């Protein structure tokens, strides 16, 4: 019953968030602000994490391919496919759920407990739409860009680690990342990223929007936002993989 209550309230909130904006110009500016807050400010962490994941993937793959009959260019291929299929979408999604999700939940939660959301409602503004819709749009637009950045940086990190550790030559690695390239993987990764972006923005907003109490409850909502977003991301990852790759 509790699950159904939350599911119903979540669907209702998302529906309210998608209602017609009061003034499109104001909403446009809000989307631009959110693009900076949620997207551009996340580039740094995505680059750092992707670089190290790519590096670790290369070294681990090299370690597992010690058989002389297995060509070394497969290290590059393995790194590329792992980054494209899983790490740049799912792992980056999980990391963004931590960074962006907690930020969204605490921002909206604080606005709730300090009556800023009531102030919006009193002015006749649809607070759900004003606060949540720009976050959804910004996340859905910018997270695919972050996914692309992650793919490139991850593959580059793999190359750098391969060179530094001396496990593969540059020519072999470059040949590997070009070998048997399947463009559909990019589409698959981008679809996942867009769905994860929607989950992060809406689940975190939901947790923040219905906070009652004080600072402690806002902190709890922030934690819940990350936990529920992560679980949903992993569950949807499984569903989408089943639907799109089999």
């Amino acid at each position, binding site marked *: 019953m509790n699950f159904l209550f939350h599911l119903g309230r979540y669907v209702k909130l998302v529906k309210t968030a998608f209602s017609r904006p009061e003034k499109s110009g104001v909403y446009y500016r809000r989307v631009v602000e959110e693009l900076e807050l949620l997207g551009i400010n996340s580039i740094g962490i995505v680059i750092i994490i992707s670089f190290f994941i790519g590096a670790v993937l290369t070294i681990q793959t090299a370690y597992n391919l010690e058989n002389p009959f297995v060509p070394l260019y497969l290290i590059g291929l393995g790194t590329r496919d792992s980054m494209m299929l899983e790490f740049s979408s799912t792992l980056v999604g999980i990391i963004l759920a931590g960074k962006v999700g907690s930020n969204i939940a605490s921002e909206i939660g604080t606005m709730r407990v300090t009556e800023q959301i009531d102030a919006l409602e009193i002015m*006749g503004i649809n607070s759900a739409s004003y606060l949540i819709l720009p976050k959804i749009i910004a996340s859905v637009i910018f997270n695919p860009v972050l996914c692309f950045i992650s793919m490139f940086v991850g593959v580059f990190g793999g190359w750098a680690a391969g060179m530094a550790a001396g496990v593969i030559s540059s020519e072999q690695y470059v040949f590997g990342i070009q070998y048997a390239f399947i463009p559909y993987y990019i589409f698959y990764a981008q679809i996942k990223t867009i769905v994860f972006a929607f989950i992060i923005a809406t689940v975190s907003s939901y947790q923040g929007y219905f906070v009652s109490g004080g600072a402690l409850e806002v902190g709890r909502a922030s934690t819940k936002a990350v936990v529920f977003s992560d679980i949903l991301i992993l569950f949807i990852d499984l569903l989408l993989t089943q639907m799109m790759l089999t």
Partner: protein
Amino acid sequence: MIEGKNIFKSFNNKVVLDDISVTFEEGKTNLIIGQSGSGKTVLLKSLVGLHEIDKGNIFYHDRNFTEMSRKQRKEIRKEIGMVFQGGALFTSLNIEKNVMFPLNMFTEMSHSEKLDRVNFCLKRVNLNNVNKLFPSELSGGMQKRVAIARAIALNPKYLFCDEPNSGLDPVTAIVIDSLIREITQEFKMITVVNTHDMNSVMEIGDKVVFIYEGKKWWQGTRDDIFDTDNKELNDFVFASPLSKKIKKMK
């Protein structure tokens, strides 16, 4: 006139407002008073639609607010200004943008016209050179004054204030009270103030409604308070030895 008729509201089967009927008149500062937990904040929030009432009706100049759709309520809400207990200023916006916010959302004014209006409202609440500051850089009293400036930006017909003096020192509280009274008379608004500050009651209470355990227990003017023999009201208003002495002197 704002009229509430037979208002009932409960939370989790606990009755918070029990058959309350009130009227608030134009150009007057109407006060809702009562102990903490008596239901006065719920009444105020019900009047503006932040809480849906279980039974009863609320009228704004004979327009039945209770039966209105969300869209119709939106129109009425443009005529409402509200000052919240903590100010409820948008912390991510500077003072100028806070006061300009309702103008951005609901008017087609040019930027310079909006700026003129913002400066007028800030000047009206005696604030100068604060436009570019953020709420966190202001004192509690200044934040309340900015909240009042934002509430009057759209020239509202109705002004609601939820404990505007909470957390303020007595001198600043008097300044805020005077400001609310002056603005009410100047703009001919209907002002409803929710308070448990007895100085406010004596200072600005043109009409006073006393809420006790979710019921309307008493109503009258601030002068009537000294003559009433209503036990609960006397216990609440003249709770301190000093105020008891004042009553005896009167």
